[in-house]
């Protein structure tokens, strides 16, 4: 058999590196461990077993379980949001009603106040008118009385003057003057 010199040279060198690296590994295998095809059947078999069981567990139990947890939470959040929205609408409606009632009450209060003011004014006016009428009646009565008293006083002035005159005349002349003379004299003096 023909062996090229090049091959003859490299073959022992290759063997040498194999044994050299081989001592570094277990069982004297000269291959880089991940490329050691002797281990492949075992690795494939155990990968199929472990990954197969893992896949089945994920498919049957874990994925549906986490999926249902997330879905449940999602539903719950949506439900809570709906509830919150409904409550907000209720609160808004309540505020609206309250404001409407407040406005109505304010209007009513205004009208009550206006009525009360008008009533009070009317009453006050009536009372003032009554008091004024009473006062003017009293004033005119007083004036009438003053006029009476004045007239009476004037009427009595003649009598007083006659009595005074008779007393003076009696003192002066020692004789009583007649009533006719006295009257004529007083009225003459009055007219003068």
């Amino acid at each position, binding site marked *: 058999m023909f062996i090229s010199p090049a091959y003859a040279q490299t073959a022992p060198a290759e063997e040498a590196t194999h044994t050299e690296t081989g001592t*570094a*590994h*277990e069982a004297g295998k000269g291959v*880089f*461990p*991940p*490329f*050691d095809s*002797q*281990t*492949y*059947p*075992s*690795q*494939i*078999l*155990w*990968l*199929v077993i*472990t*990954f197969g*069981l*893992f*896949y089945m*567990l*994920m*498919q049957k*139990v*874990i*994925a549906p*379980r*986490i*999926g*249902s*947890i*997330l879905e*449940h*939470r999602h539903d*719950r959040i949506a439900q809570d949001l709906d509830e919150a929205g409904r409550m907000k609408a209720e609160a808004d409606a309540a505020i609206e009603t309250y404001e409407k009632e407040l406005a109505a009450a304010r209007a009513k209060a205004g009208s009550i106040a206006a009525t009360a003011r008008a009533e009070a004014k009317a009453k006050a006016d009536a009372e003032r008118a009554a008091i004024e009428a009473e006062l003017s009646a009293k004033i005119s009565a007083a004036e009438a009385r003053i006029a009476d008293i004045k007239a009476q006083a004037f009427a009595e002035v003649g009598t007083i003057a006659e009595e005074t005159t008779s007393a003076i005349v009696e003192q002066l002349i020692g004789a009583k003057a007649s009533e006719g003379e006295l009257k004529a004299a007083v009225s003459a003096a009055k007219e003068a």
Partner: protein
Amino acid sequence: MSNDPTHQFVVSKIVPIEIGGVDFSFTNASLFMVASAVAASAFLYFSTSNRGLVPSRSQSVAESAYEFTASMLREGAGSHGMKFFPLVFSLFMFVLTANLLGMFPYFFTVTSQIIVTLSLALLVIGTVLVYGFYKHGFHFLGIFVPSGVPPILLLLVTPIELISFLSRPISLSVRLFANMLAGHITLKVFAGFVASLGAMGTLGIAGSILPLIMTVALTGLEFLVAFLQAYVFAVLTCMYLNDAVHGGH
């Protein structure tokens, strides 16, 4: 040996099982596949067992993961794509948990094995093909013939579409695999520097501060990558499922 950055990817048997000459042993890889599936299941199961209307902290994490995936799928594949929700959710949670578990020291990273990421990618592409042909029949092939393209250009465009479709499982699986692998190797290398420099006396300890800072920063970055790659895997799954749901237009 413990300083070998690829040592963390070695698959070692815990319970040897052999059926028909093929090795089906329960390995550390199998153990962490079980751990990822159990951890993710237990978290999702117990955090949601109260079915609280107001979620507890853990329940809201589970719910965010659900809603995150759901919106991703709805944006990617529309509301018709929601029937694939369990698949996308399982992929996202499984890959994310596997990535995050891998961040623990001494823990095995399931997604740093190309065969694991390739199997998951083939599951996605297989689902796309099966559902696509079931839903659209022969018209499903229309995804390779974009509408509104002149017939002569189709001679060029169709092979490109075909190649891009065929490369999907590879890009999908290699992206996740390579990111996890490279990240863990880098972390291991920098952490290894800390240990080996620290063994070199006072000056070494002073010098090991730099790789230590780097390791801390990379750890943060790796957590981001762990999440980001799970997200990218799920997003691309959604986009590929879009083809299956809506077919070629």
